[in-house]
């Protein structure tokens, strides 16, 4: 019999909120986190400053972490690991798994990050290139490496099973959640702490994104006419995934079920999205979930707000669902929390699951008017829904696609 995978814990931090409750409270009423940000933050020794729209975390609340672990736990870590630890602590707390023996050897950690510790590397490189100092802080590699969040969470929670970070740009955490589901299905573990983190609001990272021409100068307007591009956010989102019988046996509250995962590679272009690749991932997820394409669903779109991505995603959704698309509801939460790159897939899946639970589609904000190239059943205001299934899309640069399907418990 197939081992079923349920969700027993959720945790997140982003510009929108520092836990799942606050995040939902704000997004449900159309309260967005995008505002003007000046970079670099908290450093006036750099000659160059840039301003633009972003969804930053101004100050990470560490109370929840400090209540569980020593101050030493997060003291000097890169924001990447700090965000990941905050979200993981909340998720494991909600799942009531602190102190559980399952953490020891039967739990995995699978995180998605688009990049490593940008702040750590940029500070290190500044010394070399700007000041000509031929010495870097000894913690540059341990703090900056992309896998640091997985190691830090493993150390804090005493997890001795498989732990790793995988990377597929903007789809990283969706891939992580999907692969974690397979780990549980395959019987390798009973629990997985799965999600992603990103801390990309640094001067160097910002300039690199900016030079791609993909960033909006006003705000994030998914599927809207006159949309300019994406807006960067930062943070982390984590799920506790658990084998259903394991969760039932210990009396855990089951929040939702993860029933499908499809992934594909466009194998076509390093930045341009490909409709065929997107369609393949969506169809694969439906096949895995054994969910017919005409079942009414909540679609958490990738919806970055770039001209090409939104139009391509809209065309793929129309092609996959055909006339049945009209009965679906499409949300685009990046309009509120910005693009968390590697952490986006996890945060959007998390918000989508809460939306199913609450029976409410959070509104797409900043939408000006319909773009004929993006004719979709968009939730432009908060909408009551009775969908039982969530399809959450993540389509990354480089044509790496991941689609997750969840259903109400």
């Amino acid at each position, binding site marked *: 019999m197939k081992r079923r995978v349920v969700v027993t814990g959720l945790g997140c931090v982003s510009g929108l909120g520092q836990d799942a409750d606050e995040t939902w409270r704000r997004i449900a009423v159309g309260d967005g986190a995008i505002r003007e940000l000046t970079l670099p933050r908290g450093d006036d020794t750099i000659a160059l400053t840039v301003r633009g729209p972003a969804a930053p975390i101004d100050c990470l609340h560490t109370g929840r972490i400090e209540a569980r672990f020593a*101050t*030493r*736990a997060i*003291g*000097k870590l890169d924001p990447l690991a700090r965000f990941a630890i905050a979200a993981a602590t909340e998720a494991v707390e909600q799942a009531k798994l602190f102190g559980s023996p399952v953490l020891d050897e039967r739990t995995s950690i699978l995180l998605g990050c688009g990049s490593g510790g940008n702040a750590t590397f940029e500070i290190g490189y500044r010394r070399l290139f700007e000041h000509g100092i031929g*010495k870097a*802080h*000894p*913690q540059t590699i*341990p703090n900056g490496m992309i896998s640091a969040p997985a190691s830090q969470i493993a150390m804090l929670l005493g997890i001795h099973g498989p732990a790793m970070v995988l990377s597929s740009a903007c789809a990283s955490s969706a891939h992580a959640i999907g692969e974690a589901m397979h780990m549980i299905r395959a019987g390798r573990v009973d629990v997985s702490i799965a999600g992603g983190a990103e801390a990309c609001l640094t001067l160097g990272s910002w300039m690199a994104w900016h030079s791609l021409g993909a960033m909006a100068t006003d705000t994030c307007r998914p599927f809207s006419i006159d949309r300019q591009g994406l807006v960067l956010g930062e943070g982390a989102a984590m799920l506790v995934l658990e084998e259903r019988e394991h969760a039932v046996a210990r009396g855990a509250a089951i929040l939702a079920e993860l029933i499908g995962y499809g992934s594909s590679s466009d194998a076509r272009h390093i930045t341009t999205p490909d409709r065929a690749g997107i369609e393949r991932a969506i169809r694969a997820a439906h096949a895995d979930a054994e969910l017919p394409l005409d079942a009414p669903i909540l679609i958490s779109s990738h919806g970055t707000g770039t001209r090409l991505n939104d139009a391509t995603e809209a065309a793929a959704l129309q092609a996959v669902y055909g006339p049945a698309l009209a009965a679906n509801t499409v949300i685009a939460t990046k309009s509120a929390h910005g693009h968390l790159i590697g952490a986006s897939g996890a945060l959007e899946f998390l918000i989508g699951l809460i939306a199913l639970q609450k029976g409410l589609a959070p509104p797409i904000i900043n939408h000006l008017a319909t773009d004929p190239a993006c004719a979709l059943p968009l939730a432009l205001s908060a909408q009551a829904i009775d969908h039982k299934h969530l399809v959450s899309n993540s389509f990354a640069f480089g044509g790496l696609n991941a689609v997750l399907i969840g259903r109400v418990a």
Partner: protein
Amino acid sequence: MLPTRQTIIAIIADEARIEADKLEPEATLDSLGIASLDVMSVLFVIEEKFDVIIQQEDIAATDTLGQFVDVIFAKVAAI
């Protein structure tokens, strides 16, 4: 200006992420959970702040926190 021993202990506390009041001079670095990488980080910050070079062999024989601070203090005071 010369740092006090307190300043040095504060740097150790910060770099090794240990509360300063737990840093008893008689305690060994090991027992305080100060790993070799933490020692490197402390030396890096001391060198930066006080423009001094401290070699690995200078601290090789230190066992307790007090000895570690003594070596650093002597190096900084000798500038």
